[in-house]
């Protein structure tokens, strides 16, 4: 039974931020509004959506970097709470988007990668610590001589590798990758994507891969979840989502990807969405997508559709199916 248990099990996760507007008005920003998904051992779940849809918040709340407003996160069958999160830090790590601001400019690389080792007491003597740091650097494709340098001496791609080495230091079983390649050039992006894949094959790590670049997510993930305004609107296998999206939002999102291929570009039919994403402070009643949806009906204004099973592991939240 325990074999079939998912590694990460997120159930109805909610994260509301209080926002002040005006003197007495207190409003609530529903960044994540009831998100549920599971990730198996060694699997990659891609999480896509536009800016402000709450994908980063999902990753951070999941790791209790933000205190969840409600909902549960189970890691390997055990409930993660504020009190016992310390135990799980060794198993769950994160790689951030910006390789410039996520590394302390006053620390050497060996200090940056060594810090998690220090905190979790993962070595017996200094020699062991230095060896482990060298090993980690080689693992992510850097040189062990790099350990004495500072972050500013590296290029963006190399910095991202340092960030990955730091996450790997404690031998995690799960890493949240929060837009890890968005800040990088195309040629460097491919290097980092390959590094993530090789590490997964070698160490069996599961990823939650958050990104807005659908081509990269499609390449990395076995399954993809599409988010819109704090909710998952569709989740399914990567090829199903990319080739046959069902939810009207996923359809327009996928059709909007600029394809790096002139032939496909000429024959492609773009579904252009009208208008902008509504402010999460003034969310439309009912289905959050109905203000931009081509198929919106009376029913969509009244109740919010919940994720329902459509077979083949695909779940869609839409009334018009």
């Amino acid at each position: 039974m325990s074999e079939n248990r998912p590694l990460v099990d997120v159930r109805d996760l909610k994260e509301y931020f209080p926002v002040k507007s005006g003197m007495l008005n207190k409003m609530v920003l529903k960044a994540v509004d009831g998100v549920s998904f599971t990730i198996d051992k060694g699997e990659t779940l891609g999480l896509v959506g536009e800016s402000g849809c709450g994908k980063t918040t999902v990753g951070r709340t999941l790791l209790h970097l933000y205190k969840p407003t409600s909902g549960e996160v189970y890691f390997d069958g055990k409930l993660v709470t504020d009190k016992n999160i310390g135990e799980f830090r060794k198993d769950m790590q994160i790689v951030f988007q910006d390789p410039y601001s996520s590394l302390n400019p006053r620390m050497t690389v060996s200090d940056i990668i060594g810090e998690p080792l220090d905190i979790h007491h993962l070595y017996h003597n200094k020699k062991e610590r230095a060896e482990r740091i060298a090993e980690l650097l080689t693992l992510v494709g850097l040189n062990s001589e790099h350990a004495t340098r500072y972050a500013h001496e590296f290029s963006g791609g190399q910095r991202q590798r340092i960030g990955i080495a730091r996450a790997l230091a404690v031998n995690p079983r799960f890493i949240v990758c929060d837009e890890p390649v968005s800040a990088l050039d195309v040629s460097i992006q491919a290097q980092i994507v390959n590094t993530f894949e090789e590490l997964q094959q070698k160490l069996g790590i599961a990823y939650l891969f958050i990104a807005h670049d659908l081509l990269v997510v499609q390449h990395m993930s076995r399954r993809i979840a599409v988010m819109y305004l704090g909710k998952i609107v569709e989740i399914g296998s990567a090829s199903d989502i990319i080739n046959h999206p069902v939810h009207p939002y996923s359809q327009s999102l996928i059709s909007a990807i600029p394809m790096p291929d002139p032939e496909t570009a000429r024959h492609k039919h773009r579904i252009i969405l009208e208008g902008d994403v509504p402010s999460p402070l003034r969310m439309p009643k009912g289905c959050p997508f109905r203000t931009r949806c081509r198929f919106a009906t009376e029913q969509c204004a009244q109740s919010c559709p919940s994720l329902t099973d459509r077979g083949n592991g695909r779940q869609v939240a839409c009334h018009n199916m």
Partner: protein
Amino acid sequence: MSNVPLLQVKNLHTSFITDAGEVKAVNGISYNLDRGKVLGIVGESGSGKSVSAYSVMRILTDTGRVTQGEVLFNGEDILKYTPQQMQSFRGSRISMIFQDPMTCLNPVFTVGSQLREAIRIHTDRTKEQINARALEMLQLVGVNEPEKRLRQYPHELSGGMRQRVMIAMALACEPDILIADEPTTALDVTIQAQILELMQNLQKKMGMAIIMITHDLGVIADICDEIIVMYAGKVCERGTADEIFYNPRHEYTKGLIRSIPRVTEKHEKLVPIAGSPVDLLNLPKGCAFASRCECAMKICLTEQPEETWVNDSHIAACWNNVKRMYEESKGGEAR
């Protein structure tokens, strides 16, 4: 006269003088742009794609200067223009939109006053005509409730709306060329699709030429007639979209195309380009890409490859291409 291309850039060199030395951002690029065409310039950060456009517009920072070359607009060298001439030239003949529409709009003036200013400077219309034109432009770029928007400040608009306002401002005086420097990079995919669609529609309607600068090969494939691939301030390859994507001749272009993920059923590993971009302070003697190139030969390290015609719509600057063409021509003779 009609045979003269609208814009001719000839052997343009631009450098920045810094404390560390001369940074050679653009090292001799040449291209022609015809009326009503869309030219894409693609390259990674630091490849000189933006600086080449800034040089054309003459909006380089104080430390930067064009050290060599000509920029001919309708046959006239605009690098010789006086600052006053340049001021009336910018905006009316060539305009530009930038990546981040927030930093390009003045936060303390309303959208309307900024839009009206652009029209007032370049035309001698009356106040009513200017107002009407501003409103017409906002409608043209698909801004909803244009009367209200004219009275609003930039921070009250979303990113996509701001970019539409920027486009309205750039096109208000019906320029012949619109230079778009990463216009959709800061925007979400669905908004990006809106803006690209808008630019294509406006281009058809108003017939201006567009220079599209981007690092996104997808955007380039979508809308460009001709593509220039830049690396370390030089043109690697230039040709029609089909030639660049289906018949790439420069190893860097090939590498770029291989390193983007594709939608395929079976999982193919990406082939990244090894190493990191070249240091513009110490450019190598030979081909700038040689140190990262898998097919580098001896000559690549010592001599810079010249731009060679592959066919009448395709130029490549790569020794491997020269070799390949030589072998093909020899093979042809033997037969």
